[in-house]
């Protein structure tokens, strides 16, 4: 029996010729990620473990992103703890405020995550890196501290669900819509403990930004990871960024998938997830009239340059609706710089949007656009749970950047063709 790409990566890192779903093994970790919001706890646990040495400081990446710049004294202290830890242990890959970005936008851009890697991060959206053909999964602070101390961690080999998208992508339909489609179909626990592997001929038309979006929300189905088999597009993306060797793994033809799902995308239209769950998905056409107070364009899901371009395009040069606040959060300093040089920032500012520094900020109700009671927001982020972006009575709808741009102009959730 053949192995899937996920099984192959786990086997390679556990030093085994073969692994099977359900098996529990210790595997060497190529890279571990922590951010300002989790590092302080991770450091404390690491010290409790009696850790005096990091197994490999060069395999650790620390990123200021959740509360950037610090929103209050408590978050300033979290960031300070991380900064001091990075200095004390000589961690090269420490990303300071002003030279960083949202971790899941930043790490691929900087070439830290490469095909074939086994990656853990103390953030649930670590699965984003599956877009480059890595096996990447979220853990908590204690597991991360264990990996810091040991250089390895235990994993249960997940079953894999194969998801194929077929056909030509219609205009305005993006990676976000593909993953929302899947979520609407299988639900928030449809892939619990499993790996989602994405393929089908549509994937060749999905750019890397779209693939990051798709893998990013694998966790919203409960998946351990989302992964795209690397192809020419992947290679083009990583070869100019990589500073260490990498391996392109592919699933065997006779891999044992626990489930196989096929979707035809040709007749698709943009999708929206209604409150209060990312699997509460409907097509725009059947949504009805939903007026909004705020639009957020950004996050590790849709804060890349391609997303900002698409949002701008969907606004068709029009101004933001008078009743609406639009908050645009470029995903990293690099994205911000490119958005400035391409003229996107001036277009958005002229339209009446506010540009936030690269941060998680409003996505987790942190800062830079928290919602008041009963306010309604359309957001390109990944979660719309109760209270996620502010007051527990506020409502969050999720969409891709094109719908977000159109809705910003029209003041209600709208299709770009309506603008």
């Amino acid at each position, binding site marked *: 029996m053949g192995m899937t790409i996920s099984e192959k990566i786990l086997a390679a890192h556990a030093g085994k010729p073969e692994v099977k779903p359900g098996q529990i093994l210790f595997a060497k970790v190529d890279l571990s990620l922590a951010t300002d*919001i*989790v590092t302080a706890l991770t450091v404390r646990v690491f010290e409790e473990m009696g850790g005096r040495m990091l197994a490999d400081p060069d395999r650790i990446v620390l990123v200021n992103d959740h509360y950037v710049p610090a929103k209050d004294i408590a978050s300033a202290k979290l960031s300070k703890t991380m900064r001091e830890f990075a200095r004390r242990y000589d961690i090269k890959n420490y990303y300071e405020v002003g030279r960083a970005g949202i971790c899941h936008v930043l790490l691929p851009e900087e070439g830290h995550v490469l095909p074939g890697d086994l990656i853990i991060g103390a953030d649930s959206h670590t699965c984003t890196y599956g877009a480059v053909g890595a096996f990447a999964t979220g853990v908590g602070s*204690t*597991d991360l*501290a264990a990996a810091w101390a040991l250089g390895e961690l235990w994993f249960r080999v997940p079953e894999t669900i194969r998801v194929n998208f077929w056909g030509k992508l219609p205009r305005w339909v993006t990676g976000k819509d593909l993953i929302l489609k899947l979520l609407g179909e299988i639900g928030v*626990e449809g892939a619990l403990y499993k790996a989602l592997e994405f393929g089908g001929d549509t994937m060749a038309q999905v750019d890397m930004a779209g693939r990051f979006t798709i893998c990013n929300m694998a966790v919203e189905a*409960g998946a351990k990871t989302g992964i795209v088999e690397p192809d020419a597009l992947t290679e083009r993306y990583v070869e100019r960024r990589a500073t260490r060797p990498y391996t392109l793994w592919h699933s065997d033809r006779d891999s044992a998938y626990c489930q196989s799902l096929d979707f035809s995308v040709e007749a698709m239209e943009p999708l929206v997830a209604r409150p209060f769950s990312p699997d509460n998905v409907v097509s725009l056409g059947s949504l009805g009239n939903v007026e909004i107070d705020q639009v957020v364009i950004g996050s590790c899901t849709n804060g890349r340059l391609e997303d900002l371009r698409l949002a701008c395009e969907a606004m068709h040069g029009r101004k933001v609706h008078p009743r609406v606040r639009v908050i645009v959060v470029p995903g990293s300093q690099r994205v911000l710089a490119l958005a400035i040089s391409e003229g996107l920032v001036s277009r958005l500012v002229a339209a009446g949007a506010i540009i936030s520094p690269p941060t998680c900020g409003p996505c987790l109700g942190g800062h830079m656009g928290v919602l008041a009671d009963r306010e309604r927001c359309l957001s390109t982020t990944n979660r719309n749970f109760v209270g996620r972006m502010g007051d527990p009575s506020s409502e969050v709808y999720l969409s891709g950047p094109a719908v977000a741009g159109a809705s910003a102009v029209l003041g209600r959730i709208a299709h770009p063709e309506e603008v």
Partner: protein
Amino acid sequence: MGKIRGRVLKYGDNVDTDGIIPARYCTSFLAADLAPHAMEDVDPEFSRKVRDGDILVAGRNFGCGSSRENAPLALKGAGIAAVVAKSFARIFYRNAINIGLPLVESEEAVLTCQEGEEMEIDLDRGLIYNRSRGLQANVQPYPFLMQEILAMGGMVAFVKKRLAERN
């Protein structure tokens, strides 16, 4: 691993970690700061209801969403002795076991209990007793490695031992 006996507090499916502890409180990871806000966005009455040693019972996919370890820390800090659910989200599952908060998967036990009833979990025998109704349900056994981690009281002790073995 012993027995845990407590009063049931019951919730539904897909309780997410933003509900267990909203991000607005996650600038701290200290149980004392987190506990008063545990479950706040799921049930604003939780902090008044919960008593030390209570067992939280929930439906499917408990702990989905953010990987924040503050979530099991908040529940443990609030006095929750164990969580029984139909299923758990995987990151939450690992986090809770790692910090020594026992989680038990049993659809049957969840379906047959009501808020306020008396429940007893026998981790060694893999059984849950509903003392109020005289019912018994089986527990999904832990993978061996998790049993070991839980028996040692959590991941910190486990790593300490592994580090010591290397020296």
